[in-house]
């Protein structure tokens, strides 16, 4: 299934590489490039999935959410190997097994999505901005004098958890539990867990659901300015509310979906500030230039996409990128690869704030499943960038870039630790 002449390195990558290989997974760009050029819908034998690497093929998939199912792609992965036992534990001890209502296909997805959008109105995002700004500035001020920190563990991760507490209206002292819950839920999709680990994770998820259900009851009786209140009180055009099971699954999804993604984006923000000092200098001079800050956020997301690949399953035989896929084929949409495609983004490895199509990256996906939290995510990253460059400067990596490690998952490319040095400004 290859086109053109193959350089030996490309041939060897296509024959032997896999996204499951930690070395490839940490530095995947040559693999993406070989696929884009020679085998745009590439079978990754070890992963058991087709990797879709070209912008136009991903766009085709996004416009046809019935042929390319999120529901099947996602739920066939969940708790793989232990599905029944996992569901029984949640039913018995976790208040119920609640399938993910947003990980679904139209027309059901359309209704859920509309109800969920009430929690992501421009009003809600605006209302959160001052609170998030305060969380960001408090956290930076608390580390600014130390001169060194781990940008991921000391900053990105705790910041994201605090933001989620603000957004959902959860209690402040929940930090450690939220981190554990997040791991337990994400472990259910596409990661290796043995039975022992599954049992531990299932127990965490029971704990999470009991906590969320109690919060939902509180907000039902006494609504506040937060997303749990928005969701339990949301009504569609016919006056219908979400079912209890749907609401639990959506609140659980919001807790998880915005967590690792945003934390990863903030880690990447520090990585760019530390490795491209000219950009840091430009930002320092431009904190009040909203246009430039917006463009910076988009280019950051394009060049270092937090979510690199998400899954779909075909519901019928279909042609894609010159290949015939059978029904039931499991696909990984390589958003990170599409963002690097030369004929869409000229000189793609250049951090270029003047790109005419800077907003056309696929880091938030596209089509009906396009990230629902994108306005919130953009705002969070912009606020963080602005307040960081205001408060600290001379940011440098405290380890060689080759030593940066990433979390073991195909779905995101997340820096595990990022030791940095810096000075306090002003």
């Amino acid at each position: 299934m290859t086109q053109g002449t193959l350089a030996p390195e490309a041939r060897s990558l296509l024959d032997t590489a896999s996204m499951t290989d930690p070395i490839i997974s940490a530095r995947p760009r040559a693999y993406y490039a070989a696929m884009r050029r020679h085998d745009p819908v590439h079978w990754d034998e070890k992963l058991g999935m087709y990797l879709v690497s070209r912008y136009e093929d991903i766009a085709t998939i996004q416009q046809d959410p019935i042929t390319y199912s999120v529901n099947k792609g996602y739920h066939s992965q969940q708790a793989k190997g232990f599905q029944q036992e996992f569901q029984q534990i949640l039913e018995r001890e976790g208040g119920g097994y609640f399938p993910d209502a947003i990980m679904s296909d139209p027309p059901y997805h359309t209704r859920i999505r509309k109800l969920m959008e009430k929690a992501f109105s421009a009003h809600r995002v605006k209302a959160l901005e001052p609170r998030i700004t305060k969380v960001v500035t408090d956290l930076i001020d608390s580390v600014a004098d130390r001169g060194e920190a781990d940008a991921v563990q000391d900053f990105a991760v705790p910041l994201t958890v605090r933001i989620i507490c603000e957004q959902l209206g959860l209690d402040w002292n929940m930090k450690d539990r939220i981190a554990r819950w997040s791991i337990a839920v994400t472990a259910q999709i596409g990661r290796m867990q043995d039975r022992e680990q599954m049992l531990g994770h299932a127990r965490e998820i029971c704990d999470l659901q009991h906590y969320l259900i109690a919060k939902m009851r509180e907000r039902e009786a006494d609504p506040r300015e937060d997303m749990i209140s928005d969701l339990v009180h949301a009504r569609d055009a016919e006056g219908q509310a979400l079912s209890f099971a749907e609401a639990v699954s959506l609140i659980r999804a919001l807790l998880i979906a915005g967590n690792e993604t945003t934390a990863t984006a903030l880690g990447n923000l520090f990585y760019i500030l530390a490795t491209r000092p000219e950009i840091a200098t430009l930002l320092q001079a431009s904190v009040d230039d909203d246009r430039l800050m917006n463009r910076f956020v988009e280019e950051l997301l394009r060049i270092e996409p937090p979510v690199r690949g998400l899954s779909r399953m075909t519901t019928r035989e279909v042609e894609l990128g010159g290949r015939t896929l059978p029904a039931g084929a499991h696909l990984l949409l390589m958003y990170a690869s599409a963002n690097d495609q030369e004929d869409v983004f000229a000189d793609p490895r250049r951090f270029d704030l003047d790109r005419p199509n800077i907003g056309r990256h696929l880091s938030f996906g596209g089509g009906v499943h396009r990230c629902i939290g994108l306005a919130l995510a953009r705002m969070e990253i912009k606020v963080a960038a602005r307040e960081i460059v205001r408060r600290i400067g001379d940011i440098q990596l405290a380890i060689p870039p080759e030593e940066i490690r990433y979390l073991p998952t195909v779905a995101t490319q997340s820096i595990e630790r990022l030791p940095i040095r810096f000075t306090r400004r002003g």
Partner: protein
Amino acid sequence: MVRVTFVDVHGVEQAVAGEGDLSLMELAKANGIDGIAADCGGACSCATCLVHVDPAWVDRTGAPDDIEYAMLDMVSDVAGDTSRLACQIRLTPTLDGLRVVVAQQ
């Protein structure tokens, strides 16, 4: 009844009409105009409903507000052309006869 002509992504003219409290994007979706994806459902956050307003009509469609302008700036030459997000244009009687070109994306 407000009549609108869309030039779709294939360059084909489509004359349609709508009534009631509609956005230009909703009118396009209701008529299956190619090139208006409207991923975000009109929340001004995806720019997949990008159109170029016929210069003869820009006075009546008006200028984008700040939020729309910021979105436009990431996908078009907003300072130099007549681009707008169709979801941010309300169809009022004064727009009867409007002509827009759906942007290539």
